[in-house]
């Protein structure tokens, strides 16, 4: 770090990303609370453990190969080979992948992307509760968290990605690269996994399976909102000089940028985060006729719909786009549920997947002609590029691999828990230690009571 200004900028950027990572941890806390709240009492521990173990499994695999994929895959395999030079500094044995006085950014940048990986895996985790084997889900978690989503990030969320360059793909806060792909992936798994016992009546009509603890869901989703705010900040480069970008920007004025190194501001995205949250909540309240959980989820779906263009939208546009997205997403969820008899336990396919797809397409129209990148020779943002991008995210990298892997798991008999266990509850079937210990201490207290104390004492 030569020069005080350079040192200050580097340390500020390091600290900035570190803070966003801490905030984003709340997304996972929120997902855990939401899933446990939505599950029935007999499945609590299993549901919690299933999502908690996503953290270490995705973390270590993201260290071993996920992070390298991001740097090596921007043009691979359609428009070039692996970028081994950029990838070299991000291999797990590289000197920059550890405490290194000459590099203060790689660790916090790696962690910011890693937290996005947890989110992608956790979105899938919610939709499959109460009937998937943990072993099966954890394979999916590694695949979506450390392989598929990070390939899409290399293609469409990297300043040199082929989707950005040739399609003009624009997805500033990850409508597609996190949410559409994770929603599509969840759909691929539940299409093979099947619904929970009792979800559909004999005539095919769906039954509601109410959450056992609505307040836990409420706090969970508010924590997700909070973490999502940190996520927005993490998607920006907080401050950079025109020379630092090395693109076409002239003059000497420094700026904040989005992930593509194109100008935006933290102030602008703060407007849009809150206005799209509000538009989503208002539309969801109306369309769900005041249903609490769809209203809360609608807030999230609103932000997700507007996220592709929230670096550039006017706040009123962000609010209206969020509202439109939520109406589409809500109706699509129930249509798909009835038509295909799919049991998405937390509405993840709709809130993340459909909202992400709708958001990408809308951004193509509203931001038509805007530059997707500060570099020369890149396509500008357009509806066709955004629609193709949405298809690649939802179907190509999300639904398809999930469907194939889930089919293989089903054929091997390792996808779904046995019917008897599903009815008994996974906590009683899998977590003997806790249940046995509880039973033992109750028996011991009863015995003590009967021997030592009488009613008068």
């Amino acid at each position, binding site marked *: 770090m030569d020069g005080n200004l350079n040192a200050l900028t580097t340390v500020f950027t390091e600290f900035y990303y570190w803070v966003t990572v801490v905030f984003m941890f709340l997304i996972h806390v929120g997902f855990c609370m939401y899933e446990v709240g939505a599950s029935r009492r007999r499945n609590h521990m299993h549901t919690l453990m299933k999502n908690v173990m996503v953290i270490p499994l995705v973390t270590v695999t993201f260290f071993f190969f996920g992070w390298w994929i991001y740097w090596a895959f921007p043009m691979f395999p359609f428009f070039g080979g692996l970028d081994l030079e950029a990838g070299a500094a991000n291999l797990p044995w590289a000197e920059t992948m550890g405490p290194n006085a000459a590099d203060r950014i790689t660790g916090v940048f790696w962690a910011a992307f890693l937290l996005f990986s947890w989110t992608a895996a956790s979105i899938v985790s919610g939709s499959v509760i109460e009937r998937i084997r943990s072993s099966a889900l954890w394979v999916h978690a590694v695949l979506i968290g450390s392989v598929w989503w990070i390939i899409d990030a290399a293609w469409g969320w990297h300043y040199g990605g082929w989707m950005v360059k040739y399609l003009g793909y624009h997805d500033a806060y990850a409508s597609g690269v996190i949410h559409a792909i994770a929603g599509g992936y969840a759909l691929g798994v539940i299409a093979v996994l099947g619904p929970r016992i009792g979800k559909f009546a004999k005539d095919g009509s769906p039954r509601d399976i109410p959450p056992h603890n609505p307040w836990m869901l409420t706090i969970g989703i508010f924590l997700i909102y909070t973490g999502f705010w940190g996520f927005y900040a993490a998607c920006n480069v907080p401050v950079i000089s025109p020379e630092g970008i090395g693109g*076409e920007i*002239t*003059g000497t004025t420094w700026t904040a940028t989005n992930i593509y190194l194109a100008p935006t501001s933290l102030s*602008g995205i703060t407007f849009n985060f809150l206005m799209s949250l509000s538009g989503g909540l208002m539309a969801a309240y109306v369309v769900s006729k005041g249903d609490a959980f769809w209203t809360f989820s609608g807030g999230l779906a609103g932000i997700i719909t507007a996220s592709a263009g929230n670096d550039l939208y006017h706040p009123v*546009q962000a609010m209206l786009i969020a509202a439109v997205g939520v109406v589409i997403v809500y109706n699509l969820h129930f249509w798909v549920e009835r038509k295909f008899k799919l049991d998405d336990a937390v509405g993840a396919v709709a809130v993340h997947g459909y909202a992400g797809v709708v958001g990408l397409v809308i951004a193509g129209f509203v*931001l038509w002609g805007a*530059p997707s990148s500060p570099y020369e020779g890149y396509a500008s943002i357009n509806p066709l590029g955004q629609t193709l991008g949405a298809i690649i995210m939802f179907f190509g990298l999300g639904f398809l691999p999930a469907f194939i892997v889930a089919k293989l798991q089903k054929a091997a008999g390792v996808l779904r828990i046995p019917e008897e266990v599903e009815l008994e509850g996974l906590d009683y079937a899998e977590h003997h230690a806790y249940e046995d210990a509880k039973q033992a201490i109750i028996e011991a207290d009863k015995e003590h009571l009967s021997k030592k104390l009488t009613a008068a004492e």
Partner: protein
Amino acid sequence: MSTIGYESWAVDMADVGPIYPLQGWEFPMVVIGVLFWIGWHRIQFVREHKHLEQAKQRALDHERIEQSVERY
């Protein structure tokens, strides 16, 4: 043509102001936003009134009210 007024970022950021689509249409956009907000209140007032009227009819059942009071 670009909806944000810039087709390229080959500019000096010192000279750049708004970068959102439909610049110059801020006031009409706010009018649409306000209509959305007022419309929301209208829908909510009508729905809540209807809901409470139906709830009132149900509440004429004295035994049902007693059960609700008992439930706290």
